[in-house]
Each structure stands twice: as structure tokens, then as C-alpha cells.
């Protein structure tokens, strides 16, 4: 009987995932945006609802309606201000922009509403939370019953909208062939705008209905984002009814696991991540949508579009000179700024790991921080537990990261770029909940201490060491980029078939990119561990480190080592600038998020791309980008 209760409760929980997932699918189908800010949009609407009830004493139902209108307007604004400028960008770029958008929305909400004294618990609910429907021995809160009903009704309504109305036909036409749809007279901007409005409204419905179960704060609902994504994936981001099935199913499984004995009940921690990975690999959407539809919504997923500009690689010699100068400059810095400089270099190496993996080979990984965490833990295992000397610990940690992360690389081979990006988010969660909690590997998630040897115990000595290591890594990467291997990587990124035809095995080069990237990230993680002295795996989580590193690589210019260095410098320096404000402020979130969106919209090659345009004449130290793929092929495959 108790198991029946778990299942019934699971339906109520799953409705939350389904409701949020439906909005994600809607937007994805219309405009190719996998919107990670969807939950944040719902949160903003929930704040509006709160404001209308608390401050203006509006009836709960009326406030709900106005909040839904606000959600629709917010959807239109987001579309116009963020995704219209990014219309020509790839789906991966739009995905990254949605991360920035989430930061902007959360920051703005913090600026407008969050202040000390604002209730964190929202006491007003359309439906009762403290009473419920008695069914099968369970008592389901009326609010959650409403979620099931509304979620089901919305799914049916949206399915009818997409399948039976003119608007739905137009959305599908746009998804399948935008150019043909335009030629047929469909106003794509208008259709997209309407769909964003609809998605914003669904986010608002979810926000207003779900928030009474939890606290009202700028992060409200964001914890459900991954599970909503899993629900959306069940339908391959194409079928709204499938989202309902996926959401309810996920909720039921989750609650059944609550009742399971240990250790099975602990599987809930990785349930969403595992489900996302399985769905990505199995491509379960084929059971719900036609192959034509599934292919149609894939669209352009390459991260780095052809800009006409060659990647700024630099030469090994110039990198050597640059880091020699940096080493000398380090000597005149104070201890604190030497520490900051070391931190900058660690971030630069982390950014470089993405240049090779994402910028060159086109594989979008959102888990550089996780790889760095593996390196840091290995540094603790080797240096502290096994007593290896520092000189051996750091390189072994870097190399040891490669096989650990090879699993990710292998899985990556089966995923298209957008799905790989999502998959790495899920895999980061999987690492954090499993490997990063092991006693033998990560001290059970508690603090780990590593000690630098005496000769690099001081800030300046360690800074000089890291300058030297970074110099070697950057020079080697520049050499790699100029060599046959680097060109082959970029060829694989741009054209799989052509690369294969020319003898450049895409599988081999993709795995190689993962190996190099993992080694760089592992190296950075080990160096960061010794910089901190004491750390835990919490410092290497997706939200803390991976997003920051990806952001800095994008802003700097993800195709270029110079971009990684510039992005790291900007990131660390701006952190210190904003830190000095020392005030309670959410402007940082707004500015960083908006800056990321602006760079993505204006300069796909980031700050380096802007600089290159400015200095277009001085291209002598950069690689001449071959215009014809055949040239690349010949270079890549020649002895």
C-alpha cells in the first residue's frame, strides 16, 4: 500500500517537471533555443505575483492572471533583446546565452525585490498546501493536484496548438525549413515572438504554482531545471505530450526510490543525470517524433561559426617571451597580487583546455571544472595520502585525469554538439554525486590539504613556477595548433565527412582533443589545489567553476589561446574590481550575464575577435586560415 502512495505522490512531483519541461520544448521548437533560463523566468513571475498580493492587496486569482501576463511580456522581451540578435548563431551559442540570461534575471530580481525583511516563504497559494485529496491511502496537497491537472491540460492544449492550429503549423514549418517558410510568407519573427510569449506564460504558471511549495528567492525553481530538461528530452525536445509522460514518469520513479531501502534510495541523487545521459545516448525521442521532425529541430549546432578570421594562435616563441615578461613582472608584485596572478594563470590553463576541446574540435563540454576537480583530488591522493613528491604529483595528476575523463570522451562520440553540452552538465552532476564523495578519492567531500614544498612555499616562488608551467603549456598548444594535428582537429570540427575522406579519423581526433583537454584541466586543478592548500570538491562544482571557465573562454575567444589568457585575465581582474565595491549588490550578476550575451551576439570570437578586427592588418603572427577544406585535408593527412 505504501508503494502505491509513493507512486501517487510521484505524480504530483512529476507534474512540476512536466510543467517546466513543456515550456522548454515550446521555445526550442520555435527558435532553436534550449533555454536554461526558463525556470528563472518562472521565478520572476512568481515575484510579480508576490508583489501584487502583498503590496497591492490584489486577489490571489487576479494576481495570478497578471503574473501570467507578465510572464508572456517577459518572454517577448527576452526574445527581442537576447535571441533576435543571436538569430544567426548556433544552437550551442544560444544555449550559452541562456545561461547568461538566467544570471541577468536573477540579478535583476535581486535588485528589485530581494532585501532583508522580504519574506522568504510565500504564504499565498491558489490552492491549499496544508490540505489535500485522499486517494489510495495518500493525501496529495490540493496545490499539487492542481499542478497535475494544469500540467495535463497545458500539455494537451500545447499539443493541439502545435498540431491543429495555423500557428502550430507555422512553428513546425519554421523548425523544418526556415528559408522555405519565409518564402511561403511566414513571418518568422512574429511566430517566434508569439511562441516566446506563450513559453513565458507557461513559465509563469509553473512559477506561481510551484513556489508555494518552497522558498521565494532568486534561485527558486532552478533546482528543477535539470529534471525539467530530462522530461523534455523524453520527447526529444519535440513532443509536448511526451514531456508530460516523461515528467510524470520521472516523478514516480523518484518517489518510489524514496521508499526503497539503502543503497537504492541514494540513487535519487543521480537519477536526473543518469536519465538525461541515457536519453541522450538512446535518443528515445524516436518513439515520439518522426525522424524528419527530429532532424529538423537540430539545426546548426556548431559553436564556432566561420567568421572569416583566423584563430589567433600565437607562436611558441612569442608565448615564451610573453611568459618570461610575465615572470619578471610577477617579481615586482605584492604577495597578494602574486597570488592573484597565479590564480589567473590557473584559469587561463583551464580556459585553454576548452580551446582545444571546444574551439578546435567542436565538442562542447560544460565540465572543465569537473576535470579540474579530478586533477585536484589526484593531487591530494598522490601528494598527501601516498606522499609523492610535488614534482611528481602535479604531472601525474594531470595525466591521471585523462583516463578518468576518457569515459566522457567516449560518450561524447555518440552525441551531437548540443546534446553533448547538455550531457556534460549531467555528467558533471554525476561526478559530483559519486566520485567527488568517495573517501579514498575526495576525502568524502570534506576538506583536503596539500602542502607545497619549501622551494615554492612563498607566493612569488609558486607564481614563478606556475608562470613557467603555463608558458610551456601555451607554447606547446600554439605549436600544436599550427601543426598537422591542430589543423586536423579543426577540420573534424568543420566537416566530419571530408575529414574522414581525407584520412583524418574523426574518432581518433575527438578522443585526442578530450585527452589533451583533460590533461590541461587536471594540471590546472592540481595547481589550484596547491595554490589553495586546503580545498574540497565543492570548489569544483559545475555552478562554481565550470560555468565561470566556460564563460571566460567564450568572452575571451574560444578558438584562440590568446582568448583563454585574455578571458582569464578579465575574469579574475573584474572579480577583484567588483569585490572592492564591497556592497550588497546584484549588479555583478546582471553585468556579467549581459556581457556574456553581448559578446556572443557581437563577436563570436570574443575579445580576441574584436581585437583582430581592430588590428586586421597585423596578421603576420597568426596562422593563415586555409580557405579551402581540401587544403586542410591535404595538410592534415600528409606525412
Amino acid at each position: 500500500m505504501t508503494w502505491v502512495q509513493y507512486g501517487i505522490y510521484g505524480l504530483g512531483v512529476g507534474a512540476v517537471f512536466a510543467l517546466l519541461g513543456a515550456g522548454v520544448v515550446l521555445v526550442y521548437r520555435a527558435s532553436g533555443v534550449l533555454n536554461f533560463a526558463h525556470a528563472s523566468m518562472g521565478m520572476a513571475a512568481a515575484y510579480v505575483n508576490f508583489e501584487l498580493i502583498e503590496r497591492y492587496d490584489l486577489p490571489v486569482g487576479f494576481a495570478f492572471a497578471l503574473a501570467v501576463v507578465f510572464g508572456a511580456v517577459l518572454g517577448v522581451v527576452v526574445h527581442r533583446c537576447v535571441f533576435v540578435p543571436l538569430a544567426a548563431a548556433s544552437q550551442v551559442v544560444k544555449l550559452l546565452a541562456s545561461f547568461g540570461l538566467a544570471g541577468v534575471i536573477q540579478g535583476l530580481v535581486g535588485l528589485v525585490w530581494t532585501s532583508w525583511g522580504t519574506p522568504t516563504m510565500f504564504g499565498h497559494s491558489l490552492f491549499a498546501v496544508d490540505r489535500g485529496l485522499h486517494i489510495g491511502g495518500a493525501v496529495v496537497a490540493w496545490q499539487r493536484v492542481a499542478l497535475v491537472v494544469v500540467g495535463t491540460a497545458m500539455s494537451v492544449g500545447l499539443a493541439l496548438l502545435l498540431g491543429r492550429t495555423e500557428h502550430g503549423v507555422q512553428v513546425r514549418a519554421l523548425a523544418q525549413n526556415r528559408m522555405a517558410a519565409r518564402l511561403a510568407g511566414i513571418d518568422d519573427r512574429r511566430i517566434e515572438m508569439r511562441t516566446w510569449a506563450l513559453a513565458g506564460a507557461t513559465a509563469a504558471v509553473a512559477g506561481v504554482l510551484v513556489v508555494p511549495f518552497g522558498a521565494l528567492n532568486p534561485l527558486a525553481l532552478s533546482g528543477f531545471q535539470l529534471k525539467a530538461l530530462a522530461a523534455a528530452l523524453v520527447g526529444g525536445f519535440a513532443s509536448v505530450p511526451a514531456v508530460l509522460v516523461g515528467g510524470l514518469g520521472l516523478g514516480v520513479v523518484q518517489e518510489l526510490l524514496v521508499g526503497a531501502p539503502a543503497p537504492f534510495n541514494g540513487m535519487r541523487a543521480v537519477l536526473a543525470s543518469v536519465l538525461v545521459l541515457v536519453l541522450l545516448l538512446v535518443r528515445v525521442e524516436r518513439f515520439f517524433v518522426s525522424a524528419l521532425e527530429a532532424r529538423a529541430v537540430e539545426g546548426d549546432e556548431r559553436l564556432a561559426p566561420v567568421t572569416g578570421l583566423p584563430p589567433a594562435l600565437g607562436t611558441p616563441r612569442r608565448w615564451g617571451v610573453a611568459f618570461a615578461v610575465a615572470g619578471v613582472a610577477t617579481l615586482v608584485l605584492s604577495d597578494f597580487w602574486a597570488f592573484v596572478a597565479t590564480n589567473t594563470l590557473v584559469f587561463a590553463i583551464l580556459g585553454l583546455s576548452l580551446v582545444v576541446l571546444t574551439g578546435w574540435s567542436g565538442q562542447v563540454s560544460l565540465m572543465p571544472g569537473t576535470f579540474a576537480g579530478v586533477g585536484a583530488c589526484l593531487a591530494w591522493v598522490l601528494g598527501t595520502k601516498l606522499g609523492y613528491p610535488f614534482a611528481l604529483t602535479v604531472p601525474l595528476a594531470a595525466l591521471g585525469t585523462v583516463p578518468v575523463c576518457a569515459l566522457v570522451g567516449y560518450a561524447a562520440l555518440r552525441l551531437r554538439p548540443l546534446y553533448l553540452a547538455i550531457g556534460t552538465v549531467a555528467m558533471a552532476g554525476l561526478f559530483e554525486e559519486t566520485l567527488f564523495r568517495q573517501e579514498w578519492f575526495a576525502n568524502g567531500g570534506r576538506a583536503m590539504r596539500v602542502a607545497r614544498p619549501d622551494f615554492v612555499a612563498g607566493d612569488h616562488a609558486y607564481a614563478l613556477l606556475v608562470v613557467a608551467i603555463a608558458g610551456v603549456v601555451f607554447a606547446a598548444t600554439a605549436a600544436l595548433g599550427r601543426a598537422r594535428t591542430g589543423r586536423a582537429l579543426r577540420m573534424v570540427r568543420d566537416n566530419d565527412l571530408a575529414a574522414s575522406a581525407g584520412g583524418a579519423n574523426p574518432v581518433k581526433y575527438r578522443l585526442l582533443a578530450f585527452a589533451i583537454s583533460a590533461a590541461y584541466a587536471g594540471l590546472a586543478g592540481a595547481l589550484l589545489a596547491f595554490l589553495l592548500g586546503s580545498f574540497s570538491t565543492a570548489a569544483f562544482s559545475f555552478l562554481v567553476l565550470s560555468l565561470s571557465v566556460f564563460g571566460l573562454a567564450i568572452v575571451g575567444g574560444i578558438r584562440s589561446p590568446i582568448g583563454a589568457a585574455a578571458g582569464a585575465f578579465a575574469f579574475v581582474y573584474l572579480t577583484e574590481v567588483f569585490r572592492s565595491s564591497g556592497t550588497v549588490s546584484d549588479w555583478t550578476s546582471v553585468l556579467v550575464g549581459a556581457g556574456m550575451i553581448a559578446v556572443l551576439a557581437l563577436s563570436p570570437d570574443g575579445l580576441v575577435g574584436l581585437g583582430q578586427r581592430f588590428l586586421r592588418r597585423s596578421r603576420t603572427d597568426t596562422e593563415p586560415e586555409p580557405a579551402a577544406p581540401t587544403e586542410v585535408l591535404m595538410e592534415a593527412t600528409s606525412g
Partner: protein
Amino acid sequence: MADGMTLLTPESIARHPSCVGRRAAALALLAVLAAGCARGEEVTFVQREFAPGANTAAAASADAPATEGGLLPVAGGAPSGTASAPAGGTTGRGAANAAAPPGGGVIRLGTVLPLQGGQRDFGEPILRTTQAFIDEVNARGGVNGWRFELVAYNACLVCQGDALAAVRRLVEQDRVFAIVNTYVMVVAFESVIPYLEQKGVPLIQGGSESQTSDALSPINFATAPTGAFYGRFIPVMAKRYAGITRVGITYLNVPAEAGGIDVLARELEKEGVEVVDRAPIEAAEEAVTSMDSVVARMRSRGADGVVATNPVLVIYGRLAASRQGWSAPWVGPAAWSRLVEDSCGATCDDLVLTDTAGLSYPDRPTPQMRQFIDTMARRYPGADTTGHTLAAWVGMQLLSEGVARSGPDRRLFLQTVESFRNLDLGTTSPLSFSPDRHLGGSASILLRLKGGKYVRASDPLNFGEADVS
């Protein structure tokens, strides 16, 4: 501190010592040190009577002590060359018995807190309260002539590199004398504590989130009771105050919290309470979505009460239990939490609760408590005085007491604080420190919710140390 906003970050919800197992030997030492406190006995406070006007300029004399047992300095009073020991307390070392010579400068203090985004609710009340205390002290001429200045930097709750950079900047660039009130940053400060130890920079906090590391760090002082606080308190609460005999434990499955569950279960068994179920909550959002199933699970296993290890689980669990018509008692560290008051209301009536730091004294009629409440009400009308804000106030009281006696000399300051014995600041339990004991609290009061408000359920209690071997 007990506040439901912890829902946002599981690590920060953690209320249990994160590393009880590996620090068993050290805690055993603490247990010996704490043996002087009778297990389960009530602690008698030496309380001051609140004298209206005692802290006003009119009542002040020119040679009034700069600080007296946690009271703010007398308004307009000139710096004094002598400071009396706090009422009800003694100091253990000669160096700390007399006040430092009056100074005339500014002592710069630093803090690092989450001040932006969704985590801002953790940091802002602490920052505001710390600043309020400093403004009040400065307006009254400072502590022994020393005025305070606060430099605050932002870092997220788990951003260890960022927190270390912020603290290094405070210490090396801003030249702060001490770091104060960073107790919500326990995860982020895993990188910071060794640095502060190396530099000898004091870290002073009211309350505590990581009771074992605070106890072991030579520079870190906190006002929570010593050792594995919950390991002893919760079993006593469950057995003696809630009458539970078969208990289910629900907790957030994050390292800092899950690490204390074995100790808690063992202490419950010692108290004669059978642990019939353990239900980990795997993610913060599950606290919102899955408590119905957790309650169903507890009932099916025959529990007649529940221990929930943080406020969020108490609230949502109790709401779920109420929906299901299950009236079994719940206990947990959720006292003086705004979230519990705001959201649980009558549903949580009769819950037996403690807070996370031995600070549950809302009705203690002392002038110090009155100063805290009055100041906060005046400066932040409508804002709540919660465990968060009181902890920040207590931390500043402790710092002021130390500065009054040592001046801005870090080594002397650390020795001075270590010498405090039975120091009654009027806002928390009497504090005693030593070189081996940096968690100064001695007792806590249990509270019950009545009509959504906290009322005292016990006298000050001390249950000694838990067995963490």
C-alpha cells in the same frame, strides 16, 4: 544559523560537524575538558538586571568602563583607562584581567559573506547587524577609544578560491586586524582557515557552523557550545522533551550533514531511542517535493517521532505529516528561524527545537539583549531579529571584549580571548575559552513553537559531549 533560506545550498544547511570521525581524538580531548559541565544538568546564569537608562549618556559617568560584559560603550563617554571584568565572569590570565591602555585609532575589521544573487539572504542580515554594532560603538566613542571600521567583500558560500582571495586582500591590502562573522562560509573557508592560522589573524564569530574545526583552529573563536552539539542535544530533546521511543531520522545527504548521522544515531540509541529509519534527502529541491513520501516511509516503519536535521526538513516534513494526519512529534535545530515562524505557523506548534549555536535566548531580560533588540528595531524597522542577526551581534560583543583588554595586538588579543572564563555577554550562554577550547558556549535553551512564536521550553541546558569515537 537556523534559517530556512538554507534550502538554496545544501552545504550551508549542514548543521553537523563535517568531520567528526577523523577528529575523534581531538574531540575526546574536548570531552574531557567539558567534563566539568554536568551532563544533563541545568546551567545557572548570573544575570544582570536590566537598568533602564544605564546605557544612555545621562547615566554615564566620564570614567565608565569602555565595555562591560557585552554592553555597548556608554554614549559620549570618554575612553577609560580601566575596564572591569564582566559581571558573572572571570578572566583566567593576568594579561587579560586589566583593560588595555586607551587608544585613539581605528581598528579595521573584515568580513567575507555572500552578498549577491540568491545567496544574498545569508550574508545581508549578518553584514547589516555587524555594521549596526560597529556604528553604535563608534557613536559612543569606541571601545576604550578604539573605533571600528568594517570592510566587507563578497564571495559565494562554496567559492573557496574566491573566499581565499577576498580574505588575503583584507589581510594584506586592507590590513584588517581580524575577520568577523563569517560563520555561514564554512565550506568556502576550508581554504581560508590555514591561511589565517599562518598569519595569526583572529577569526571571531558568534554561533558556529563547523563546530569541530572551530574548536581545533588556534585563531578561530566561536560562541557555540563545544563539540558535537547535536549529537547530544537532539537525542535528549527527542527522548526527554518529545517522548520519542522509535525515531526516524531525515537529513540532507551532503557531506557536512551526512557525516554526523552515525554519531547522532548512536547517541539516540544510548538515550534509549530506537532508530527505525534513516531517510536521506538527496537534493535541496527534494526537501520541497518529497517529504510526503518520507513521512509515508517513516510511518510504515513504525516511527513514533522524527528527527529532522535542519529547518527546511522540519517545515516541509511537518506540513506533510499534518496533511497526512500524523501527529508524531518532530525535533530539530530550527529554533529562531524566520522561515519556521513565517511558513509553518500553527502546523509546527509544540515542536521542540534548538538552534544551531546555543543562542536561543530571545526572552533573556538582560540589558545587552535589550540593546540588541532596540538597535536592530531602530536601524532596520520591520526586519527580523533572528538567530542569524543575534549571532552576528554576539560575535561583535566578543570581539569588543577582547579589544577592550588587549587593544589591536593580535597575539595579545588571541591570548585574551583564550583567557575568558564564564564570560556572560548577556545574549548567549556564558562563554569559556582556553588554548584547547575555542568554542566558548556552555549551554542552550530549548524552545517550543506556540502559535507560530517561540517560547522557552527549558532552562539553560548542557549535555556535554557526544561520543564520536
